[in-house]
């Protein structure tokens, strides 16, 4: 198995995220302990409220010396101007280049980090046109964990050149996309451990989170036989991939919207395998969602992988055979690189 050296976490954070903050906030955050910085999952800026960092222990305020505290006094308060400035810098000072993303409520930074935006919405014909008066930003730090799918890949592999249609089910913040990315890499590169030859993989990366493309080139390692359709809506993207790139496996994130079912059926009917993720706290939780329920009833997915963060992000809860609904793996274990 080819293993890449994980990127140096602190300098990644500095290069990919802190550079977008105004000098004032950047200085405070850079005073923080590097060990703390390398571990954070979210940075939140809210107008007139303390700057908040979230790690696996919960959320923390940052005080003016860069220390994490749980007390509001002396915490560094984000000014509304600083927030506006941050978004301006994040959109590379070119609002028009990000207008479609802002309409959906978030933009994706180089490196695949998703930034959620809250503020006053401007409407046009009942559709969101823009968000102004930005009052809150939530920066979710995306991490590559090479090798995290090493233990569960054997439940996905059918034989040396084929895999099972797989759905990864997980609540937010539990490592869904991280796992999906690593699966893409292994299926594309192949692995000697299970005698699996690499196959052609098509990634439909609607939110630029899986491959984190910059100028069309994946910044994350998603494998050598992988083609990425960056920023493309899932349903359209799956059809385009199918028609144009002849993939053996199509990989996409966060299914469950209208039209996803039909698109996935078209993929499966074309004899192409699919690996997708869905938001949910377990298999029974998914049954309340029509698009996904239909797919489950059609027995499209042959494997379900359920994640949680019971033991930190990326805790494997169970692997279930989609045809017999029999548990293949039960019990919690943490997936690590």
């Amino acid at each position, binding site marked *: 198995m080819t293993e890449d050296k994980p990127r140096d976490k602190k300098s990644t954070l500095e290069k990919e995220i802190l550079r977008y903050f105004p*000098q004032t906030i950047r200085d405070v955050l850079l005073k923080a302990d590097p060990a703390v910085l390398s571990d954070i999952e979210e940075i939140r800026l809210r107008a007139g409220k303390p700057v908040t960092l979230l790690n696996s222990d919960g959320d923390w305020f940052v005080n003016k010396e860069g220390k994490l505290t749980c007390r509001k006094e002396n915490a560094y308060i984000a000014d509304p101007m600083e927030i506006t400035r941050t978004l301006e810098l994040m959109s590379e*000072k*070119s*609002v*028009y*280049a990000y207008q479609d993303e802002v309409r959906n409520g978030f933009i994706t930074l180089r490196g695949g980090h998703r930034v959620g935006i809250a503020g006053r919405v401007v409407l046009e014909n009942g559709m969101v046109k823009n968000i102004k008066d930005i009052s809150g930003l939530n920066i979710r730090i995306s991490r590559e964990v090479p090798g995290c799918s090493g233990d569960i890949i054997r439940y996905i592999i059918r034989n040396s050149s084929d895999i099972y249609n797989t759905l990864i089910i997980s609540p937010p913040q539990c490592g869904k996309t991280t796992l999906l990315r690593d699966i893409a890499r292994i299926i594309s590169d192949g692995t000697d451990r299970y005698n699996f030859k690499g196959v052609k993989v098509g990634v439909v990366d609607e939110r630029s989170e899986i491959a984190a493309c910059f100028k069309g080139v994946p910044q994350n390692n998603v494998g050598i036989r992988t083609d990425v359709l960056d920023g493309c809506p899932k349903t359209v993207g799956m059809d385009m991939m199918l028609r144009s790139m002849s993939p053996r496996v199509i990989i996409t994130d966060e299914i469950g919207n209208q039209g996803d079912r039909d698109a996935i059926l078209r993929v499966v009917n074309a004899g192409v395998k699919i690996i997708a993720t869905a938001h949910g706290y377990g298999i029974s939780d998914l049954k309340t969602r029509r698009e996904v329920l239909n797919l489950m009833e059609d027995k499209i997915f042959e494997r379900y992988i359920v994640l949680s963060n019971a033991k930190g992000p990326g805790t494997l809860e169970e692997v279930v055979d989609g045809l017999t609904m029999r548990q293949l793996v039960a019990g919690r274990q943490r997936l690590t690189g």
Partner: protein
Amino acid sequence: MLLKIIGSILIISASGFIGFLYSKDCSARPQQLREIQSMLQMLENEISFLSTPLSEAFERIYKSSNNSISAIFKSAHEYLIDNLNYNASEAWALAVRDNIKKTSLKEEDEEILVSFGKILGSSDVEGQIGNIRLTVNQLKMQEHKAEEIRKKNENMYRTLGVLGGIAIVILLL
């Protein structure tokens, strides 16, 4: 006598040369106004068709052409990437101020360029395109005016240069 003749020739050719320089400056301005228009056209394409962020769009524009105007785009690009604290309109205004002296453009052209920067990068594609078209139209009008001035002045400067030289020679003789 010979010295006088050589001196007179020197004076006449020098002042003629000065006149020639002035007349050349007259034709440089409409030329540069045309260049900006075509560069803004490229920017329009980058924005509307490719959704390229400004720093990258400026980079492509200045690399694709080499004239005194591309220096403005080059320095705007540098302001945008070097110092994260400038927004697009500040970067553009600084770039125009820094480089306008090296061009033949007049103050009124500078004002059009600076006001072009006011909403640069801060609105949606339609807004940006509207702004670019408006600026291109204004520059076109400037170009027409500059063209007329050029026609009027070009010959005048040349003849003035030579005649002025002759006048000086006559006075000195």
